[in-house]
């Protein structure tokens, strides 16, 4: 691909190109000298022909231990206890209306006044089933209001059983860059409470498997993929754990066992 340089800043090109060639030349010179030195000592690195393949996942414990297929129920249970361990809340439902009931209860519990949702069809449907008592914000018109919004609802693309992680892929609403994506970045991040809808069939065993699934087409990754495990947290003041610093303070995941 051609280096597309900024037209509005003339003179940048020469500077950028100089630094590029200098960095690469310095790296190559140093590597060449290490190779010569290594050969002299007789245990140097391999010559730079092709990348030496690192043996994939033969030893790293994660994929290997989970290679045995668990049942769906085991996976959901593992997801639930992992999320519980990081102060998240997992709800299990067996119908879409069950999901709406959970959402309704959360909204009542936390006295939520303002809600935003993503543009996912399931999310739209579930939020529609929840009856009144709150204001539904339009994310297009009201970004500043979103900063003070109480609760956001979006769909998780995938789940990770081993850590209780939800995976959220963002992109354009039409999803024409490969896999289905939704507009959830701010919905899942700005409000104090985030509720994610997760289909049981989308729960993978490991973080690595989820990444592999998201990146199945290596040339076409979603613009942003976020792996979120529990509510946001900090320990920057005397190492005391505090939940909800910049991201959500409450992380709810509604697992739809029928999906």
């Amino acid at each position, binding site marked *: 691909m051609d280096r597309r340089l900024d037209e509005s800043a003339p003179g940048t090109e020469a500077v950028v190109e100089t630094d590029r060639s200098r960095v690469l030349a*310095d*790296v190559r010179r*140093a*590597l060449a000298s290490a190779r010569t030195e290594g050969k002299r000592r007789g245990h140097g690195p391999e010559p*730079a022909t092709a990348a030496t393949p690192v043996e994939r996942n033969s030893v790293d414990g994660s994929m290997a231990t989970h290679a045995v297929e668990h049942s769906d129920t085991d996976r959901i249970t593992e997801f639930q206890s992992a999320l519980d361990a990081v102060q998240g809340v997992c709800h299990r439902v067996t119908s879409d209306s069950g999901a709406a009931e959970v959402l309704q209860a959360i909204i009542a519990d936390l006295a939520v006044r303002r809600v935003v949702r993503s543009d996912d069809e399931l999310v739209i449907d579930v939020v529609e089933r929840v009856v009144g008592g709150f204001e539904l914000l339009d994310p297009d018109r009201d970004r500043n209001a979103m*900063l003070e919004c109480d609760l956001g609802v979006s769909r998780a693309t995938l789940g990770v059983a081993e850590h209780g992680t939800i995976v959220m892929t963002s992109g354009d609403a039409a999803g024409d860059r490969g896999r289905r994506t939704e507009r959830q970045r*701010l919905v899942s991040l700005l409000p104090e409470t985030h509720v994610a809808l997760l289909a049981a069939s989308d729960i993978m065993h490991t973080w690595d498997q989820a990444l592999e699934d998201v990146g199945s087409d290596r040339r076409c990754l979603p613009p942003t993929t976020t792996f979120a495990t529990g509510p946001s*947290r900090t320990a920057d003041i005397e190492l005391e754990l505090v939940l909800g610093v910049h991201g959500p303070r409450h992380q709810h995941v509604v697992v739809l066992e029928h999906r």
Partner: protein
Amino acid sequence: MSEPAASIHHLHADHFAELVPRALANVELRGALANATDTIRNRRATALAGVDDLQALRGRAKAIKSEALEHLDEHLERFEKTAEANGIKVHWASDAEAARAVVLDIAARTGARIAVKAKSMVSEEIGLNDALIDAGVVPVETDLGEWIVQLAEETPSHILVPAIHKRRREIRDLFARVLGRPMPDDAAGLTAIARNELRSHFATADLGISGANFLVAETGSFLLIENEGNIRLTTSLPKVHVAIAGIEKIVPRLEDLGPLVRIIARNGTGQPISCYQTLVSGPKTSPDDDGPEEIHVVLLDNGRSRLLADELTAETLRCIRCSACLNVCPVYRQIGGHAYGSVYPGPIGAILTPQIAGLHAASQLPDASSLCGACREVCPVDIDIPGVLLHLRHQAAASDEDDAAGVDPVTETKNRAARRGFGLWRWAMASPARYAMLGRIGRISVRAIRRVPRLSRFIGPLRGWCDGRELPPAPDRSFRDGSTARRISARNGGRRGN
């Protein structure tokens, strides 16, 4: 080794000898450090206990980083190609000045007034905040610890917990002074204040600046790891996002991320996994979507490439900045991060700082270690930190003979004294008569010094040693003249000595 153009911002590691006593005298700091590092160590131990085959995971992390470094040029070029195909603009910077220029250029072109920043060591290294302020852009640190340190006009003292040296009371008073109103006492209350204050900056910022934990050559993506959510905000709200990364942050393949994500969280904060990993693979693809319109990556060398020329020094570049070595280091635990006089403290800082900025600027840091080896034992990518420390000490000692690297005056004086001392030792050890004579002089001197109370604290080389203890009494006669030595000698067939 030629004089490096690379530099580290606010570096004053040549004042190490003065900074250490000051840190040691701060009893409150030492208490805070001991508590904090103990807590992180315990959390780390618990997290690692859950890993079935820790050494295998460690070996894999090491192999990934080693492989990346062995062919760094190819991976960098591949990353450039794949990232630009994703719509990410890639910039190269051979030193700190070039990196600052790239960021300032982007800020000027986009008319940025406020830049929200996610915690980035490399941004501290290149002194980006001062450069932004000079250019009329207000940098706002958004990581809670970094924000505290920025408000206090200090520098981070720990790679992962920037305000580890600050007690809660200090933070409360600092917030009250800066914000001009009374503050709550508890950590949760103070954190909530920070959340609200920083929200307004996020709402108005036009530039987001972050580092990057890993750059994936295969897919042209980069991964950001965090717990607070401020990196997600920094990379989601402003129109323009700039990520600055050292060239050593490259990994070849997407699947290399899994083991590294697992090992960095367990070693850094003692979590099985950090709260958020964000994989950025490009700007938003539709005008209606959230996220930045422009994403830039700055690939920074700043002296790193030189480390590749030697197998041992190249190990330094495997570092994933987990900071496990800081928490176990008996030196760091006593003196804290600021005494190192560098943005990179602790054992990793003691080897990284002199190698990046040059030995002349930080030749005392390789001595800031007892070589106990705890740092290497915990290092998730098995960097031979004690080995590199010895290598650098050797360079520092050799340098004023052949004038190759150059060291600071303190090290030079120490080197000269050491050389004289060992010269005298060699002279004495070469002859039994000279050895006996020197011993006699020693015994007489010790007796003389002990006759005057406290005198030992003021005499040359004894000063440091006797600061906290008494000079022991000298025996009346040497061991060789004593009855035990004679008995051993007789048993060995009358041979004298040895």
